[in-house]
């Protein structure tokens, strides 16, 4: 419940430029200099900040620079503190998928070999976000933001739909590209009803980077080895099918914390801690050392 409130507040506050929704325009103030931690299209009419993945492609694809210290630094900074807590608690597109997952219907759990689909995110990051903007450039030396252009359903849902609805005349010339993007967005929306966060687990390049940061981020999930009886209830409660007692730093874990209340021995905790509690028998240290 607390998480839903935080997610909703973040989504509303980071997209609170109401004029944009009414007039079919976007915010053009100074806050756009800064990237938000989550995936939030900067062409959403309400967006107050910049999308880190869109910004990364914009700088990489510019004629002036081939690497963005600014955007990469911000992503590392966010990830270094929080890891994928960002995905679980403050990403607006994650919230949207979770709300869609509440629509009644058969729920499919991604487990076993299906988890290998998460490798698609590497293609998204290294081909669409970095490779194509860097190497496929026009005569002036500019590359296209390929992930935004060909894949990102957040852009279609958060930006295209509100802008088209607010100003249909202005955006009348939609063609094949829009059909491609709308199709991907439709697949993600429908899949979200049946699968928990399909975009996050299979497509999101930002989630991939934050997943790497889960290993070293200041915010950590902690499992007290002395208390854990390995009953597996945490895995059952985890919609992403993670065995947190085996790998508290799993790069798939979005730190939603749904495993904590189901633990019969209260062995799971989370937070920004480097020292173990006295009663925790140095469990965090031992698990890290496994």
């Amino acid at each position, binding site marked *: 419940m607390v998480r839903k409130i935080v997610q909703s507040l973040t989504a509303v506050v980071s997209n609170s430029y109401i004029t944009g929704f009414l007039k079919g325009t976007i915010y053009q103030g100074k806050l756009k*200099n800064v990237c938000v931690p989550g995936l939030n299209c900067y062409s959403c009419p309400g967006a107050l900040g910049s999308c880190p993945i869109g910004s990364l492609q914009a700088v990489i694809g510019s004629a002036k*620079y081939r690497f*963005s*210290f600014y*955007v990469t630094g911000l992503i590392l900074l966010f990830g270094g503190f929080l890891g994928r807590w960002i995905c679980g608690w403050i990403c607006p597109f994650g919230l949207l998928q979770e709300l869609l997952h509440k629509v009644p219907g058969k729920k499919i759990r991604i487990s076993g070999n299906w988890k290998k689909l998460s490798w698609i995110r590497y293609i998204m990051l290294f081909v669409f976000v970095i490779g194509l903007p860097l190497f496929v450039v026009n005569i002036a030396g500019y590359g296209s933001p390929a992930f935004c252009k060909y894949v990102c359903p957040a852009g279609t849902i958060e930006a295209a739909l509100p802008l088209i609805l607010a100003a249909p005349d202005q955006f009348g010339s939609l063609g094949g590209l829009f059909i491609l993007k709308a199709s991907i967005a439709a697949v993600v929306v429908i899949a979200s009803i049946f699968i928990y966060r399909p975009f996050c687990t299979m497509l999101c390049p930002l989630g991939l980077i934050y997943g790497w940061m889960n290993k070293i981020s200041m915010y950590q999930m902690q499992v007290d080895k002395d208390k854990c009886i390995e009953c597996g209830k945490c895995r059952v409660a985890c919609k992403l099918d993670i065995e947190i007692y085996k790998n508290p730093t799993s790069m798939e874990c979005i730190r939603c914390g749904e495993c904590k209340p189901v633990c019969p021995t209260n062995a799971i905790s989370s937070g920004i801690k480097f020292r173990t509690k006295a009663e925790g028998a140095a469990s965090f240290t031992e698990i890290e*050392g496994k």
Partner: protein
Amino acid sequence: MFHRKAASIAVIIIAIAMVVFGIYRTEVSDVFNKAIRICLECIGIGWLPW
């Protein structure tokens, strides 16, 4: 645990240095100029390459 703490602090220090260097070489203006204009690619206006 010490290694994780050290790695965490090192990444954050490097990240801050990268942000500062990025600001110094005016990358922020590229981010800003992209973000304040409606991204036509993001909303699906444009051509397919095939």
